């Protein structure tokens, strides 16, 4: 076993700068960090903290406009400033890396077996044929079923979790000393996340390599890392053992990060509260494939006989992994996509309503999306974005009145009213999500469907958005349907939880009941994966 006191990678005064048209950006401002043999070091920070760029700098993977200075010494060998040909002897062999995006980190045009074999062939010599045996071993090792068949599969034929396993196989191929894992589970579903982390841990126990885990997710850090370095704005603000960091944090920033874990509970409305939105036996089918000449079309049932009743003042959390049908259900409940079943808004039966008849009701039923970047038109000012709905629903309002309403809505979501004359790209992710919320709130809705509204945000920003949503709910007696794969957020937001899998409800009930005493095996796995990794 490796000697855990031996430093194998010593980073000293490392700086990463990017030259941009607006001047030089100092992404990493001179950090010192040690990686010891066989340990798991977590580098934690929010987006823009420089945690990824530190590792990219060492590995020679910075964007063209980036430059790295300082020192990173791997077992006495300086890596910074090495010519590419020399660096190529270290990277991919002794120091390897896996990335956040398992979907795009593999070349879509080559079979996975060949891609795993590439570093073997290049670092050890031999032919692809020779490497095949080793590749099969590696696939077996990372738990790819039927390696003999899968070795010739293309990346698009594998799931996200399997692709990350393939990346891990690649990383292990040359018996590395250090494996850098850059947000390795961020893009994956929680149950898959847990499997990947378990795999990494068991491989580490077996082969003894050090793991540098770059992540924003404190939950993962707590259960996985031995030491933690917290980064903020290009600097290491605190480092120490995991226990120390979590129990006795010294820097204010670390304390803030720890406190930003969503907390609090929401009380359920009275049983007598009237039902504001109902979908009974909702079924949504998608047509897949089929063309003019190819004939046969297939149907895919995204939502299969699901019943949801939302009471006034209630928040129903809909949880499930990607492909579970939770977003589709949300859209079907708002009658944005066609679906079979019985639908009711307040006391009105809206089952047979077409688009035109739904329009007057839309004002009261709003939707906030996950992606605060994609859901705001880049060519409209924030003022135009948030008042657009008023033009449709309250066309009689004068310009001055619309402006007054825009100011009020922006104030309500905690933004400066001057924001209405600026464009969305001038705002951060959290601010954009506030703009998206203001756009919904300006119409004074009764029901808001929140589709992963916090998933693209940093934890500390997430907390603020959650607080905002709670305040709005109380002051306007709103009813929410909160769709998310993030169980800790759902737990803090909802008073009732629906767990979906493969288009069906597997379990539902009051939030505390679901989280404390889940009955269904899938719910148990989901909650186990999220909270006790």
């Amino acid at each position, binding site marked *: 076993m490796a000697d855990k006191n031996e430093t194998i990678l010593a980073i000293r005064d490392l700086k990463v700068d990017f030259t941009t048209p607006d001047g030089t950006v100092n992404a990493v401002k001179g950090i010192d960090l040690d990686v010891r043999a066989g340990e798991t070091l977590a580098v934690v920070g929010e987006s823009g903290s420089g945690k990824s760029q530190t590792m990219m700098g060492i590995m020679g993977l910075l964007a063209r406009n980036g430059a790295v200075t300082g020192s990173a010494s791997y077992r006495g060998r300086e890596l910074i400033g090495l010519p*590419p040909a020399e660096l190529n002897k270290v*990277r991919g062999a002794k120091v390897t890396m896996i990335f956040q995006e398992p979907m795009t980190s593999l070349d879509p045009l080559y079979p996975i077996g060949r891609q795993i074999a590439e570093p073997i062939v290049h670092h050890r010599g031999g032919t692809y044929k020779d490497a095949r045996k080793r590749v099969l071993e590696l696939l077996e090792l990372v738990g790819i079923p039927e390696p003999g068949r899968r070795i010739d599969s293309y990346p698009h034929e594998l799931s996200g979790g399997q692709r990350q396993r393939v990346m891990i196989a690649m990383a292990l191929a040359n018996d590395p000393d250090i494996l850098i894992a850059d947000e390795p589970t961020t893009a994956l579903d929680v149950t898959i996340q847990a499997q990947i982390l378990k795999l990494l841990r068991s491989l580490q126990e077996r082969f003894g390599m050090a793991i540098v885990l770059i992540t924003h997710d404190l939950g993962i850090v707590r259960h996985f890392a031995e030491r933690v370095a917290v980064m903020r704005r290009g600097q290491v603000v605190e480092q120490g053992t995991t226990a120390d960091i979590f129990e006795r944090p010294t820097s204010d920033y670390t304390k803030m990060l720890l406190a930003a874990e969503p907390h609090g509970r929401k009380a359920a409305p009275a049983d007598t509260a009237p039902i504001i939105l109902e979908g009974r036996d909702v079924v949504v089918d998608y047509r897949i494939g089929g063309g003019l000449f190819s004939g046969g079309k297939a149907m895919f049932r995204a939502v299969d006989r699901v019943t949801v009743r939302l009471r006034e003042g209630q928040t129903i959390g809909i949880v499930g992994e990607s492909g579970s049908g939770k977003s589709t259900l949300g859209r079907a409940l708002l009658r944005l996509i066609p679906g079979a079943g019985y639908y009711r808004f307040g006391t009105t039966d809206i089952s047979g309503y077409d688009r035109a008849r739904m329009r007057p009701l839309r004002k009261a039923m709003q939707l906030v999306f996950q992606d605060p970047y994609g859901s705001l038109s880049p060519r409209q000012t924030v003022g135009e974005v948030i008042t657009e709905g008023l033009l449709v629903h309250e066309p009689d309002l004068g310009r001055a009145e619309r402006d007054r309403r825009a100011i009020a809505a922006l104030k309500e979501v905690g933004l400066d009213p001057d924001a209405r004359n600026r464009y969305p790209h001038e705002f951060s992710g959290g601010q954009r999500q506030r703009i998206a919320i203001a756009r919904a709130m300006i119409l004074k809705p009764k029901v808001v469907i929140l589709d992963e509204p916090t998933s693209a945000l940093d934890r500390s920003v997430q907390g603020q958005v959650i607080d905002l949503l709670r305040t709005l709910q109380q002051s306007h007696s709103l009813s929410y349907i909160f769709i998310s794969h993030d169980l800790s957020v759902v737990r803090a937001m909802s008073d009732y939880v629906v767990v979906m899998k493969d288009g069906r409800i597997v379990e539902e009930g009051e939030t505390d009941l679901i989280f404390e005493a889940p009955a269904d095996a899938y719910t148990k796995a989901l909650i186990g994966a999220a909270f006790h990794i």
Partner: protein
Amino acid sequence: MIAFVLRRLASAVPTLFIVVTISFFLMRFAPGGPFNLERPLPPATMENLVRTYQLDQPLWRQYVTYITNAVTGDFGPSYIYKDNTVAELIGKGLPYSMELGFYALLLALIGGVTMGTVAALRQNSALDFSIMSLATVGTTVPNFVVGPVLTLIFAIALSWLPAGGWGDGSLRFLILPMIALALPQLAVFARLTRGSMIEALHADHIRTARAYGLPSRVVVVTHAMRGAMLPVVSYLAPCAAALLTGSAVVETIFTIPGVGRYFVLGAINRDYTLVMGTVILIAIFVIVFNLLVDILYGLLDPRVRHD
């Protein structure tokens, strides 16, 4: 795969039919006719001609006759080259056009892809700017300027190459028209390649390849270039169809006996059958090359494989 090809060929039939129908009627609705010459023909001669070529029949009957004949491979006589059928004219000229077009295509493809790749790898360098300026020149300066200038320099001033004609068909005769024909397409290929190479080099999987210590030659050629070729391959179909069916301008300047002139001459003289023949020829080329490109696409990209 075979099923895919058969299905595509079957779907080509209605496409061709629609192309033929639209061109037939467009041609007939254009004012004038094949025998409206500057010096009018005596009425009796005119009447004779019209009857011989069945132009006195109702339009729908002419259309039905044309279609039924065309299906059997009879595209009728040409109205201006009176001793030849359209099939003979095209059959005679096509080999010249195709040979010239093939060389031009090779030049455009190899030259353009090489230049585009070099430009992408040296993005925003002096070399990149020079290559892209050259490409702009290639796109903006028309054939009828490039052709005579080339002749002036290489045939007349330097006397290195013949000024025109097919001669014995040796490469010497082909070089100048080939360059004139290829240049605009070369510029397009260079531009396309540069753009998609730059994008490909920024892909996440390129970062993976670099992170695993692969030599940059392997990163560029094996991983970036194959993906970057997809948009280039898409453009290959219309480009090949255009080059192989000849260019009126280049063939006229260099007096090449190809089919490129027929489309323009036919249209000007209202030589209905000749225009229709050329239209069908181009349509078939476009359809066939689109099919070939789709097959090639499937070979390059496993995600769109046709099974």
